[in-house]
């Protein structure tokens, strides 16, 4: 990744000017704001909050895959007195652990991460992406005619592992005879490998694919070309291949951002961990209107979501 590709937007203008009481939120995130994936999800979430509260000022430093740059940006925002500084990337934990104690009056949020390392001014947030994965898996099993589905993953850790494991569990729950071929290419960024992994799935007669992380764009292209179905995650990926994307799991971070802001307003600057899931509405499945999903499959998905919410289905 390029060093210092970080870019910053200050969206105060459209917020109607920075009045004295305006709430200021800063985001530091690894990839581009419009990446149709991880970074875009938090940007959309914060934008939604701004729409709701009006009096919010937002600054974004994106493209800071380089942790060094991210650390400098986090510190910069803290020094500048932002009310909430969001470190959107599990790799920023080390920096945050060092910076947050220097600014006890400023609230930080760190995602996706499960705990706050005992820091009283850090919130943690993550997504129960296994839930969405499970629902996708149910649909994939129902739609597959060859009874083989494929997964293209980056590295078997974190959010990606959670999603892929949920997906595989969903497939097996729906149709135990269906084979799930899982291919972790070993890279978040090698598009060519992701593309060939999709080809390999095709040659193993898979007709439904899913995948997670930024390099899957290569796999989506192959799926489109070979007429395989695709399930997206982290953002709505319909625009990548309008013919074959069935549905996408989308993160609605505003759900937990709302809670974080409420906490801050009440004087609590951290110490709590949040999860978005179907139950709290932070996870949603967005369907592609351009794909003609059979009503019974749609029904299965809705039933599964309901089951997850009421606890009758476990995704693990």
């Amino acid at each position, binding site marked *: 990744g390029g060093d210092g590709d970080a870019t910053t937007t200050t969206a105060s203008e459209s917020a109607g000017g920075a009045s004295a009481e305006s709430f200021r939120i800063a985001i530091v995130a690894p*990839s581009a704001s419009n990446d149709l994936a991880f970074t875009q999800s938090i940007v959309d979430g914060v934008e939604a909050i701004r729409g709701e509260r009006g009096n919010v000022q937002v600054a974004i430093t994106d493209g800071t895959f380089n942790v060094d740059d991210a650390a400098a940006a986090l510190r910069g925002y803290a020094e500048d007195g932002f009310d909430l500084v969001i470190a959107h990337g599990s790799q920023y934990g080390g920096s945050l652990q060092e910076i947050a104690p220097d600014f006890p009056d400023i609230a930080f949020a760190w995602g996706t991460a499960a705990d706050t390392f005992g820091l009283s001014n850090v919130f943690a947030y993550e997504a129960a992406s296994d839930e969405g994965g499970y629902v996708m898996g149910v649909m994939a099993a129902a739609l597959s005619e060859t009874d083989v589905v494929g997964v293209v993953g980056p590295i078997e850790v974190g959010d990606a592992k959670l999603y892929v494991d949920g997906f595989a569990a969903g497939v097996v729950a729906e149709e135990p005879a269906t084979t799930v071929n899982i291919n972790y290419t070993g890279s978040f960024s090698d598009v060519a490998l992701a593309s060939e992994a999709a080809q390999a799935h095709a040659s*193993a007669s898979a007709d439904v694919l899913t995948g997670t992380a930024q390099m899957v764009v290569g796999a989506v292209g192959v799926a489109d070309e070979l007429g395989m179905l695709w399930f997206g995650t982290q953002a709505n990926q319909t625009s990548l291949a309008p013919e074959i994307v069935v549905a996408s799991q989308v993160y609605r971070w505003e759900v937990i951002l709302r809670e974080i802001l409420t906490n801050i307003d009440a004087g609590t600057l951290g110490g709590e961990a949040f999860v978005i899931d179907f139950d709290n509405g932070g996870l949603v499945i967005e369907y592609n209107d351009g794909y003609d999903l059979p009503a019974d499959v749609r029904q299965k998905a809705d039933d599964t979501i309901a089951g997850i919410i009421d606890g009758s289905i476990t995704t693990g």
Partner: protein
Amino acid sequence: MSDFLTQTVLIATVASAIRLAVPLLLASLGETFGQRSGVLNLGVDGIMLLGAFGGYFTVLRTGNVWLGLLVGVLVGLVLGVASAVMAVTLQAEQGISGIGIFLFGLGLSDLLFQRLVGTPLPISSFPKLAVPGLSDIPVLGEMLFRHSVIVYIAFLGVPLSMFIINRTTFGMNIRAVGENPEAADSLGVSVTAVRYATVSIGGTLAGVAGAALAIDLGIFQQNLTNAAGFIAVALVYFGAWRPLGVMAGALLYGFVNALVLQFKTLGIIPRSWSDIAAMAPAIITILALVLVASRFRQPAALTKPFTRGA
């Protein structure tokens, strides 16, 4: 497990290996020209990235993949000439000037992508061409003769490069300049002209390699090449500065990767082992270093700037 031996899987693996080899092959062939004339261009990866962005952006806007490839050619040519200015005219240390070009391409391609595109929108790919007759041969036909047009272009580059290097006066001049520039100069061969030509060819093919990669994948993103340009430079060494050797290296590299992907997909090797494949480029490079270094001589003037009368 027995799945591995099916014809379908075999065909898929070979076809995948060939596809993975294409960008490396194009870039390595180009670099071969430069190195045979005594210039090491370590900036290949940067040129590939800019060629990739240029090709991608053109196809995104015009929908014409050939126009995209042409832009790859032009971007590569411009950067090839720039590389030649540094290495030949300014006589900069070639390792360092290559890093400069690499960093430049890495930074600028990402910058342009963020500015002009942002969201990785898909583009159309090269048309497939089933070679009439040949593509109907069982197994072989499907493996070798049902590829994107760019695949044939890249592989035709191998005999073409061999012909140019070994059979033309230009090729003879390249070899002379790479071995003994003083001697070539004293016979009226312009060392500067030959090196500008070879480094420009190298840049052009790197640009084409990048454009081919982006158009074939139908996408662009930051650092799309993933160090492929560095692997291409190492493959020139692996191939002992000969187009056939370079092709063998590119195919070996593609094959190792394709095989591991197939293995992983089919669950033949445990996931915990399969990651070793990530080490393939490094291992191939180091093996090549040890094997080639002891068997072949590199062009005697490689990395040495030439000044008349020095």
